[in-house]
């Protein structure tokens, strides 16, 4: 079941990205909205850490994805051995990076008035705004990824405590798998939109 859901959702998201890339024209952003490089000009320690956190989080997510999904999707096997050790070893790095990112980047990802109006339009709470905003997508996927990181991490840490029995452990594993899948998908879309925005500037 999980294998099927994973293959289908990954396929849909990748196909969606490709189609979106081909069909949707890239609009040049106004000069003031041009995306800045993460650590442009700022030489402070915080800025350097901010510089480091994003690629580190992305890198660890890729490794976590490969170690967690490759065996399962290709061979239908659960992680064991050195793969499991690498996965578990990198997980805290990823979670710490996310904690750092949400603090340092959270403010920049807040929805502004335009985003809110567009969101309300998408949710049919308001008249649709034909103008649209290029920021809504990456901001929403950012918050979604941050939100999903919590169940993905907690589900595994909680299973290390003698709280849940066999059934609970299986449920936690299930929760970990599906929340990780959703986290990966939202991270993929987020990265795509951020890159697209960067090249639009």
């Amino acid at each position, binding site marked *: 079941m999980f294998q099927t859901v994973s293959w289908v959702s990954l396929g849909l998201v990748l196909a969606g990205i490709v189609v979106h890339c081909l069909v949707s024209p890239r609009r040049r952003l106004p000069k003031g909205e041009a995306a800045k490089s993460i650590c442009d000009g700022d030489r402070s320690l915080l800025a350097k850490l901010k510089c480091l956190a994003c690629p580190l989080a992305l890198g660890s997510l890729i490794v976590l994805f490969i170690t967690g999904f490759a065996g399962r999707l290709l061979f239908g096997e659960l992680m064991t051995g050195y793969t499991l*050790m690498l996965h*578990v070893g990198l997980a805290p790095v990823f979670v710490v990076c*996310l904690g750092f990112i949400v603090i340092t980047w*959270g403010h920049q990802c807040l929805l502004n008035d335009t985003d809110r109006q567009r969101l309300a339009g998408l949710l049919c709470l308001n008249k649709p705004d034909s103008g649209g905003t290029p920021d809504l997508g990456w901001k929403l996927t950012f918050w979604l990824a941050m939100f999903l990181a919590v169940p993905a991490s907690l589900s595994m*840490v909680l299973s290390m*405590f*003698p709280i849940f029995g066999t059934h609970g452990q*299986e449920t936690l*594993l299930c929760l970990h798998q599906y929340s990780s899948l959703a986290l990966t998908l939202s991270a993929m879309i987020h990265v795509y939109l951020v890159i697209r925005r960067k090249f639009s500037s």
Partner: protein
Amino acid sequence: MIQVIRTLLPLVLVFGACALAQAAEKGKGFGDGHDGNRASVTHLIDLFDDKGDQIKSSIQPRPISMRNTCGKCHDYDTMAAGWHFHSGSTNVLSGRVGEPWVLTDNRIRTQIPISNRGWKGTYKPGDVDMNAWKFLKKFSSHFPGGNYGEMAPSEDEEDEEEEVDTSELFRWEISGKYEINCLACHHADRKQNQSDAAFQAAKENYRWAATVASGLASVKGTASELEDFYDPEFDGHKIITSYDKSRFDSNDKVFLDIVRKPTSNSCYFCHSTQSLETPGEDEWVHNEDIHLTSGMSCADCHRNGVDHMISRGDIEPSKTPHGSADYLKAYDPKKVTSYSCQGCHMGDPNADDPAAKMGGHLGAPIPEHKGMPPVHFEKLSCTACHSGRLPTGNTARVRTARIHTLGLHGKLASMQPQLPHVVTPVFARMANGKIGPHNMIWPSFWGTQTNGVVKPLAPNLVREIAPDELGIEIEEPERVNDWIELSEEQIGNVLKLIGDYEWELEEGEPKPLPVYVAGGRLYRLSNGVVVSENHDAGEPYKWPIAHDVRPAAQSLGSNGRCADCHDKDSPFIFGQVEVDTPIKPAEKQSVAMTEFGELDRGYYEMFAFTFLFRPWLKVVVILSCILLGMVLLLYALKGLDTVIKAAGKKVSSKQ
């Protein structure tokens, strides 16, 4: 019409009479059914001897024949196909690897696992020149009867087979067959004493063993002391059976307290295991299996039908047991899986009976396994964590009833063999791929190697070839670690003597090379010098154990104690398994436990190392999650604030 009836009636009557006569003649199995009444059947019965004559207290009696007594109502031949009784037959089932018989001869430093079931690492009785008679002579102390006990050569074989030892034929006649001893298991009378059966068997009084053990009679006389040509018709009865006359009623019927479900006491005689950590005076400190302590009996789980194919508790729901077709032939897995650990405690998802699907069979607690990742259940058997002795850094030793002839009283009680050393618990890979606890012995024997195949030599032949070199005549040889030490020089000398032996070889057959196997190694002569190498023939023989089951609180990993197995010093993974050998027996020799579990030691060392950081991992991840959660909550509240403000503005603008 009447004429037709008149014609047919005699035919019908004749046909019916024939059918009844045939059934009566056969006389089998009408006591094997179950009409549903749970009350036990009172066995006030006639006793019959092996000639089929009823035993009466008033005349010179013969011992009871189980075939003729129990067989009056029960299908003896069907029962004889059960696990306990068919190992010597040609269509023997191998089944799961189990405890072998061990042919031990300390003087020639030999211990050979024997089984006719073809288990890897065992040798068939025939391989060590052991026929049914010799098998009985060696292993009859803990023998359930039947099987080899009834395999006396027939008259046809006497004519055809030149190799049949005529002396043995005479002995069979004197000793009689060792029929299945039904009473050993089903006689609940506390007078039932299997030690007496062992005593009679030691005297070769096989025909009398069951009778004496039942407490119904005493026997005077020893078959092994009678001459080959002894005939009671001419020489008079020299083995006298004296029944307890008070047990016979006025019709010469005898009450036997027969139970359908054997008591655990009956099973214990052959299936006891003694921990040698606290033997002798401290025997009282030992606990029983938690199931028995809870009031259950062995037969609650190890059940069987008339065929006596006792369920062995190792069939997992929905799986072909060990990939073996043998078991499927013998069992309907749907019937027996409910009596396995998993079936009883957790339920069998494939069972037809909805109750069996739920688990909790016989009040079995459904385990929660808190904090235990499910991957453990794919890699480990239930017994790995719950059964046998709690592992320590080094394996311990046990003695078993059958291998070490435990439970004998009276004259036989002086035998207290320590060899072979059975080491336990060895966490090894089982046939189903899971790791479980095993008992293990290291074979050691003199043998020959032909075309790479190693076969042991019969101990008697070795005694004949090298009596002086092995010091057979020495009365009290010095023992080290229970062994009579064997030097490499002695090995070389004995190998030379075996090499010089005049073998009866067929034309073109190569001369066998003499070898000695001990402690996992094979010793042979190379240019007159003893050399040794690791060899398959030296591999230890191990068999999975399931008992005693410890209480849940004393199981490995109970209450989420990962360190029980994943600590860097955990005996479960990093324990040492004793190597038992007569060569330098004073030296401590061992093999890493990981070799038996086929585990990557380096990986598990690294994995254990990561457990040092696990508390940190938990703290870091939990703190990060709290931080993430708080930031998310903060922004969510901010968003809510914006929504409320926007809604407020909208309302006020409308007003």
